[in-house]
């Protein structure tokens, strides 16, 4: 029997790595991918609690989170492409104007 804690630790590890990625990397695409990692860590939690309570509500929430991730990725990548077309960079700290 794998204790719930193990799953939580795994989830925490992935979450932390994701947060570090978002906060420290300059590349927007890596930042977006790190956000995906964070969402994924959340999904693990939802899944393990869903299993713990023996219901599927957690899984339903995970589906919503994945939907959200898809939406976020689509819009985020669209923004990155548009930005790249105009500024030819994918670095976050060069995105320093509101309008172009």
């Amino acid at each position, binding site marked *: 029997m794998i204790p719930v804690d193990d799953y939580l630790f795994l989830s925490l590890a992935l979450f932390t790595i994701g947060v570090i990625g978002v906060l420290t990397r300059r590349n927007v695409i890596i930042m977006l991918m790190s956000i995906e990692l964070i969402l994924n860590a959340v999904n693990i939690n939802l899944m393990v609690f869903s299993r713990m309570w023996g219901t599927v509500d957690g899984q339903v929430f995970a589906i919503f989170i994945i939907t959200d991730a898809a939406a976020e990725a689509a819009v985020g990548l669209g923004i990155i*492409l548009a930005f*790249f*077309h105009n500024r*030819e960079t994918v670095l976050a700290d060069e995105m320093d104007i509101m309008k172009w």
Partner: protein
Amino acid sequence: MSDERTTKTISGMDSVNTTVLGADEIILNMGPQHPSTHGVLRVKLKLDGERVAGSECIIGYLHRGVEKIAEHRSYQQFAPYVDRMDYVAAVSNGLGYCEAVEKLLGTEAPPRARVVRTILTELQRIASHLLWLGTHALDIGALTPVFYCFREREEILKIFEKYCGARLTTHAFRIGGLQYETYDGFEEDTKRFCNDFAHKIDEYETLLTENRIWVGRTKGVGILNAADAIALGVTGPVLRASGVKWDLRRAQPYAAYDQYEFDIPTRETGDTYDRYVVRMEEMRQSRRICLQAVENIPTGPIMARIGKVLKPPPGEVYHSIEAPKGELGYYIVSDGTTQPYRVRVRPPSFINLQAFDKMAKGALIADVVAIIGTIDIVLGEVDR
């Protein structure tokens, strides 16, 4: 063409991925070794995504100095060389050259020779168009027509082989007429071929003409309007597909074309589909000419009375014929010796290829292939 600002290539790191894909444009070298550049054409494409923003044809990979060679050969000796220009339509090349020299000499081939020349040249036109159809369809992705086309082309080549012993670079004609009498059964062979060919061509059309994908791939692709076509000097089926009814067989009849009835197919839009339709119809018309010609081949000599050593009077001549690919012209300057002072060839492929950039602008990569195919170039002729 030289809009360097939009084309970003990062120096220092020699990798193709350094050229910015999304940013604006990449340079794609198509050829000289590429499956569908029909030989050794190199096309430098400036791509905007998959769209062509500009193109440049780089030629010369097959240059053999044919025109220069002519200056060191006697008139007869040079005749086999012209076969090597448009090597899929060697008979037409030979006809143009022989008639040009005859014009320079002020003589004419006897009627029988002219009719036989007409038959063979029209068969050659069919063979050339068949080769074009097969490879063009192959470029667009239809794998099967090419084999059907080669099956019929083989029959034509057999006739050539029986007539003069060669299949590809035939050297079928001589200055002043023909060297060989037609073989026994020449008429029957030709008739049989023409009769069979009528429904063979319908077979190709069932595969392609109404095919949605084929129509989608060719309609509206590589449009060349009549004004542009004329301005660029384009001739042949490409010109006629743009709506200009110009065919040297009718406009300046040579060989025996004035004796036969045939239509000059034209279309309006000048896109790839129209050029396809025009060439298909031209094959039908060539078949019609062959059938008419083979019905009554006049008897008589096959060679005009010219000496063994040709010494045309000083002067110059331009003679052009309607080769399968367009106007094939020979400009010959004689200084009165046995060797031409200068021979200049007006190769239809070379001049038609000029229209490529016009046709390809705004097209997709896939269309580039269709457009190269539709111009029907032979690099041997482009580069000479």
